[in-house]
């Protein structure tokens, strides 16, 4: 379903989106935004779950297990840390 040029187009367009979406970020938000984008690539947890879900041998299961645990850490840790940092912007309207 996502093959060849379709994949290339998605890649290209998503790249531009990423670039444009943060193009005017003020310096004060650099670190929180780094943390926020760190959270967003926590979506790797979805892939890790699929990889572990389809693992057959013991070795594959072990690597898959480590992958899911790491990915969950990325997502949850990224969220907690970003949320705490952004709490400091409380005074302005959210």
């Amino acid at each position, binding site marked *: 379903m996502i093959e060849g040029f379709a994949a290339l187009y998605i890649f290209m367009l998503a*790249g531009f989106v*990423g670039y444009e979406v943060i193009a005017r970020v003020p310096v004060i938000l650099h670190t929180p935004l780094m943390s926020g984008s760190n959270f967003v*690539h926590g979506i790797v947890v979805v892939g890790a779950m699929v990889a572990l879900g389809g693992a057959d041998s013991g070795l594959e299961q072990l690597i898959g297990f480590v992958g899911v*645990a790491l*990915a969950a850490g990325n*997502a949850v840790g990224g969220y907690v840390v970003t949320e705490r940092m952004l709490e400091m912007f409380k005074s*302005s309207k959210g």
Partner: protein
Amino acid sequence: MVLIQFVYFAAAVLFILGLKRMSSPKTARSGIVWAGAGMLLATLITLVHPGMGNYLLILIALGVGSYVAWASGRKVAMTDMPQMIAIYNGMGGGAAACIAAVELLKGSTHGASGALLGALGALIGAVSFSGSVIAWAKLDGRMKKAVRFAHQQRLNLAVFALALLLGLCVVLQSHPGAFTIVAFFLAALAFGVLMALPIGGADMPVVISLFNAFTGLAVAFEGFVLQNAAMIIAGTVVGAAGTLLTQLMAKAMNRPIRNVLFSHFGASAGGA
């Protein structure tokens, strides 16, 4: 199946809107909530993904990873945030490398382009993992000095070339042996360590941002391998945003990114 694809689509939209909101002080706080909602939806729907087994293992792994990260993220002091970002980012890179390892071992990387992208994602993910661990160790004060020695850059280049070569071996063999795969991952991990070693503590946030972009790219490549649109879009968006952010941060510090990565001078900022 259509429902799963729809939820992944919604998650991708939520991630982009979330990042957009996070780039303005007025809306920043709601941004993470939007992105979080997307993540929750995508994770839940993946549980009913066709062809899934090992449910017990998945749930235990999710529980362990979430709990450890939640506990550490809650109690860390505000000043220690950058190294926490580094370690969580490294986890993401490691996870991408794990996905690649499973798919390569299974030999289920759809054709040559799948194997190539999978191995590329593994390389970038593994570098991001070990590099982020070094970044964390330095910022956390566990590694005091920036490590520099003669011919360092030549050694780094050699290790990088070795990793590329082993990666090529993995891609070109239709059924690569476990030994080649392990050697490939070890070389990639070693390069991540070597890349981060000479960089001083003050430059670290820029480097963490760079590794963040790396992880995004690795996630996108593994998304191609798994044919997962949410991973492709979220990963690529982070890869591009992270690259721009790295440049912006380097500019804010008045240090071109090339100096940060390769300069042995300007060590006044370094980790002593």
